[in-house]
């Protein structure tokens, strides 16, 4: 078990190094920060001077090495655009994205599992088939369009929910939360639905197909033969076994929620790291982009690790194998 974790950690570090390299090298192609930093009336001398100051004239490996060295210390440099340490900016923005991701992830998982189980149990039912078809509409339209349509309907036409932003937030320590105010909660609804809809559909369909598979397993037949009620069979025996494969995919999905948030945050002007990233791309704010990518990778890697550990919790076979061998 310990060796396993160490091995996974090592792999994760390699993943991060590679992501770091890819992330860092891609920025060199995205655009030139100099133009946005100097105004309309700049000269070539200004450009060269700034280039030297930012270290952009140094060889690639040197730049990468510096980047890594600093990144390990949590120092991603200073945003070209905002002139503040990137770590501070990210720390400010992360709560917004994490709260949004949490709510939409929670929505996606609970609704996804509930609807997945429902459609699996009532495989032939009209309601289940309707849900299956309607859910496909959710994945057949681009996210940004769904967001815009939601704004159009609920903000502009019905004037029920705010069209952008987080509403009022409350600071708890360094964490700004929108959970504690009515306007903050209202502001969460549309973005969370927009972001969670796609993942929900995927989870629902996954749960359904896994559940159908499990419901045909021998131990479910045996449970039936022992006269256990449908409720116990469906929700105790089948669901728990369904969760084993569902957890991996769901873990990956949650990782991608944070990445997908880029689009949702752009549409709803949600003040999270995704919006920060899009802005950073617009202004070729390399330190912010690098930090964002690293953040995404760290999240992803840790979600992967958590998923693996969850496996241990849910599946006794792995637990014992790890102990016995």
């Amino acid at each position, binding site marked *: 078990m310990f060796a396993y974790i160490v091995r996974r950690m090592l792999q994760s570090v390699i993943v991060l190094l590679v992501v770091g390299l890819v992330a860092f090298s891609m920025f060199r192609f*995205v*655009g*030139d920060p100099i*133009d*946005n*930093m*100097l*105004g*309309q*009336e*700049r*000269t*070539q*001398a200004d450009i060269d001077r*700034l280039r030297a*100051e*930012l270290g952009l004239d140094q060889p690639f490996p040197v730049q990468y090495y510096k980047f890594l060295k600093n990144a390990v210390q949590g120092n991603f440099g*200073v*945003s*070209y*655009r*905002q*002139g*503040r340490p990137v770590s501070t*900016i990210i720390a*400010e*923005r992360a709560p917004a994205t994490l709260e949004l991701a949490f709510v939409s992830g929670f929505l996606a998982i609970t609704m996804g599992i509930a609807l997945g189980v429902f459609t699996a149990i009532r495989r032939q039912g009209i309601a289940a088939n309707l849900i299956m078809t309607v859910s496909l509409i959710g994945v057949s339209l681009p996210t940004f369009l769904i967001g*815009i349509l939601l*704004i*159009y309907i609920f*903000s*502009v036409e019905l*004037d029920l929910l*705010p*069209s*952008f*932003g987080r509403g009022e937030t409350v600071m708890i320590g360094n964490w700004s939360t929108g959970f504690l105010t009515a306007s903050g909660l209202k502001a969460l609804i549309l973005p969370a639905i927009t972001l969670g809809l796609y993942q929900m559909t995927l989870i629902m369909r996954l749960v359904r197909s896994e559940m159908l598979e499990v419901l045909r397993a021998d131990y479910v037949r045996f449970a039936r033969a022992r006269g256990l009620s449908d409720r116990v069979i469906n929700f105790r025996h089948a669901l728990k076994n369904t969760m084993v494969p569902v957890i991996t995919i769901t873990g990956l999905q949650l990782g991608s929620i944070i990445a997908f948030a880029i689009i949702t945050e*752009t*549409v*709803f*002007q949600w*003040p999270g790291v995704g*919006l*920060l990233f*899009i*802005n950073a*791309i*617009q*202004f*070729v704010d390399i330190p912010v982009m690098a930090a964002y990518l690293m953040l995404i990778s760290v999240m992803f890697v840790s979600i992967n690790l958590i998923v693996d550990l969850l496996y241990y919790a849910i599946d006794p076979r792995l637990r014992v194998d790890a102990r016995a061998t």
Partner: protein
Amino acid sequence: MILRNSAIGIAMLAATSVQAADFKWASTTDPQTMDPHAVNSAPVLGFLNNVYEGLVRRDKDMSVQPALAVSWEPIGEGDGWRFKLREGVTFHDGSTFDAQDVLFSYQRASGEAADTRSWFAPVSEVIVVDDYTVDVMTTAPNPLFPSSIANWMIMDQGWTEANDAIVPDKETGNYATINANGTGAFKVTEREPGLKTVLVPHEGWWGDVEHNITRAEFNPIQNPATAVAALLSGDVDMINPVPIQDVARLQEDSDVEVIKGIEARVIMLGFDHEAETLKYTDDEGKPNPFRDPRVRKAVAQAVNVDAILATIMRGNAEAASQLVSPAMSGYSAAHAERPAFDVEGAKALLAEAGYADGFSFGLKCPNDRYLNDEAVCQAVVSMLAQIGITADLEAMPVRNYWPELREDNYDMYLLGWSPGTFDAEHPVRFLVATPNEEKKLGSWNFGGFSNARVDELLPAIQAELDETKRQAMLDEVAKIIQDEQVYVPMYVQPLVWGTRSNVELTQRPDNFFLLRWVTVN
């Protein structure tokens, strides 16, 4: 300096009779810093005009009026300018404003690290005469100097030094990047870059309070549709800009109002004047047709500006004949005629130049810089197709656009130019003068156009104090530009703001939004 009146002033009510109010507004970009000397860009300067003040300021009609200086007069025969400073002015932190702050702000704003350095190119020295008198000495006579420093904002020496922000720092930032301490009508109380900035009135402001705002909040909203939705749903009180296509819809809505004006920005097509051959063409190796003025003229005649104005701009813009709009000083009234839309004439010109069969070339265009920039470029493509020349359009975000132009990766491109000085000399200096690194000339003349007469006239225009003589020279330059068809000016970009109908405000032609002219009913 009297400008043609293009500002839309809305009659103001007496501030005292109106209820105090909270005000929220949104724009596409967030000012990237609160440091008035760190970045020379319209969103920053426009925003900071609410917080900081210069010696002079511009009124609703762009005319220069006293601000921190109560009066000014030339010294000698163009040796410089003497400014008499206003007494009893306090900064937001309570400290007093005096001549030392002006000197300090000069040193700060003209230093190596300041983005605003080029404003002070003509300045040789700033001398503190007494606590409330300052002399600004210039190397050459500079009649336009006072109006060129409307955005030079004065910082408090004590505050800046105490907070270790003596030098503007754009790269790593310093205290002044997110904090501000000006003399302006509003002070910054909360600043979350990229998210929101909160302003409240400055109690000790020297001016007459014309607004009734108790708190103002600025939110950048990137997606234009989201901004429109926010305005419609009342989440914000004002947005800038309103997408042109939504103007009609907003006008129909009784809760919101659209305020339109003509901006100083002229949208034009530029050419590559230097390259021997076209870069994006099916006929590899053929000479560059755009070096021939007849071809450039043909392009000018082929573009149906009226159609663009009628459809894409929906009647919200005016055609342009020169590199500056008629509202700018130095505009050449004698050259107000733009080439007529004439497909046959354009074809004839092409044939005359030896391109009867047309040719293909590359057109570069930004897609997030000017109002409907991409749609305009598309329209240009189809119009040019009518005279048989095929444009290969590539539209890209502005972040990629400037590097692309600098690397000469274009045959034709779209450019918008807003003269920072509100004078016709400005585009000549940047867009027409032969590029010269040392003299900071022609730095946006990507196509490398070069005309000896223009280069000769430019310094003379800059030094001339006599309005008539100056105008004569500007007229001559305008004629050269038109004859040579250096650029194809198309239209003056409109300013379109949207407000809730209970808001009254003033739209200035430079697209600066000033809270001190806002009234919420």
